């Protein structure tokens, strides 16, 4: 579905600079998943877990698609570092409406800089003016890969972006900060790290799912550096002490207040 445009040798190298976007997406356990540590004590038990595009990355894909639709031109490319199973995640993004995808196969564990380097090695070859990231991936929760890639590639980067508009080679971003918000203007090329915004990520329609099967998905080995953050153990959180129902209705309030004050020392 290349809409008659010429095929390019390098997927990330695109002619029309203005509107092309690359969105970095990660395959993570579904947010509903119950996480259990396996017998090794250093990995999660993947059996029975469903995987999906990380939630903030889905917001980033949605933002990219809306931008493309508003402009009526441009190309949305998805980029993932992961194992072969990530193909499924990328197909899902293609079914939402992205045009093409690149899968860098490799693993870097919990070292965000190593992830950033592997992604930057690929992104550095692209002249797409906009790279989008999620603010954080729902497995490692590091909140660092986007700004690290931007730093490695010497691009300006705005984090925590809920909405943005592109005009005249500049991006106006709305950004959340503690207890307030700000508008930040950044020149292109730029990196934006997307947080939840007003636009709910779309679900793929059947037509999109069919079309996605024919869209290009390139797979190649990642350039992986040595990891300097090593996992020793993974543990399930300590169980919360058994709670109790203090009582029913407003009559239970005095006892609740007493417990908060005397037992929990919280008032």
């Amino acid at each position: 579905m290349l809409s008659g445009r010429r095929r390019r040798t390098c997927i990330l190298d695109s002619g029309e600079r203005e509107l092309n976007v690359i969105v970095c997406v990660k395959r993570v356990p579904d947010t509903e998943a119950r996480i259990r540590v396996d017998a090794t004590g250093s990995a999660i038990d993947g059996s029975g877990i469903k995987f999906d595009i990380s939630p903030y990355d889905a917001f980033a894909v949605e933002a990219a698609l809306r931008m493309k639709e508003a402009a009526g031109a441009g190309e949305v490319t998805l980029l993932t570092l992961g194992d072969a199973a990530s193909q499924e995640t990328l197909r899902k993004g293609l079914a939402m409406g992205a045009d093409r995808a690149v899968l860098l196969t490799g693993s870097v564990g919990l070292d965000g800089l190593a992830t950033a380097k592997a992604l930057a090695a690929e992104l550095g070859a692209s002249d797409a003016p906009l790279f989008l990231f999620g603010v954080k991936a729902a497995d490692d929760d590091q909140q660092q890969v986007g700004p690290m890639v931007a730093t490695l590639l010497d691009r300006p980067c705005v984090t925590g972006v809920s909405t943005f508009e592109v005009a005249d080679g500049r991006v106006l971003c709305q950004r959340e900060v503690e207890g307030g918000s700000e508008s930040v203007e950044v020149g292109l090329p730029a990196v934006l790290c997307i947080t939840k915004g007003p636009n709910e990520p779309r679900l793929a329609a059947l037509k999109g799912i069919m079309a996605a099967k024919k869209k290009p998905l390139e797979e190649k080995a990642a350039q992986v550096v040595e990891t300097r953050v090593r996992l020793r153990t993974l543990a399930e959180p300590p169980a919360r002490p058994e709670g109790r129902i203090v009582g029913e209705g407003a009559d239970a309030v005095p006892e609740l207040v007493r417990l908060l004050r005397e037992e929990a020392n919280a008032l």
Partner: protein
Amino acid sequence: MANVLAFAEQRDGQIGASAREAVGVAATVAAASGGDAHALVLGGPGVAGIAGSLGAVGAEVVAVGEHDALAEYNPEAYVDVVVDRIRAGEYRAVVFPATTLGKDLAPRVAAKLDVPMVSDVTAIDASGAMLVVTRPVYSGKAFATLEVEASPAVLSIRPNVFQAAVRSAAGAVESFVPTVDPSTFRMRVVERRAAAEGKVDVSEASVVVSGGRGMKDPANWQLLEQLRDALGPDVALGASRAVVDAGWRPHGEQVGQTGKTVAPKLYFAVGISGAIQHLAGMRTAKTIVAINRDADAPIFGVADYGIVGDLFDVLPRLTSEIAALRSGD
């Protein structure tokens, strides 16, 4: 011997709790490493005036960079100043608070220094040659303990987890004027919409009062506001995603998987069912109170104290009892 640096964030000329916690962590790691804790404060001219207080929470030396362009945060201004200080100091570790600013700044600094970073740390063991840290992963559904092989190790620490140290010493304040050239900035803040005076952010408050779909109507939030006011200062409102998506509350208040992670000492979940994605944001609160009319709501599975009942009956009573308690103090 090795020193440890804390980045002590100032906001509007105030040093907040998360910055003091970062200094406290730096002091602990420094003590285990046979070195001193240093603090770095950046801000506009005159900011040195607020920096001396960091001695009392553990900083032997407080370096204060003053420049007009540092008065408000812009990573284009801050990164190089921070990186230069770190390079000059040969630190074992650099500790940032995991606030919005810290989360924006620390990864850039780590990437410039070509060292990995560990985010949202909740425990640190500095006794061995290798720093060992623990942090939540999978939205708090698991905790990873990690060895960090880097010098310096760049860490951000989760707010409200570590205690700020207390000692009766003043830090030596060393002011400097860094070179910053705003004409090179590729991004700029064009507008800041500050929160109302005195309003604390839900991610930093020590008490959070959150409402969900059970509140029925945005107008009913006045009941939660009254409870918040009765509880005193440092209390923030929170919300479930259902009410944020309905447009009842701003996204900045959302707690959970796609909102904020909070670890207050007291969390009220009012008319919130307790979906797994909501728990992801608040399950590490010290004490959780749930008010819900459905005795089977999953929120009761994590709550320390629950009241089963109609929130419209329970809230006014709770507010007046707490107000009475506080006025009697």
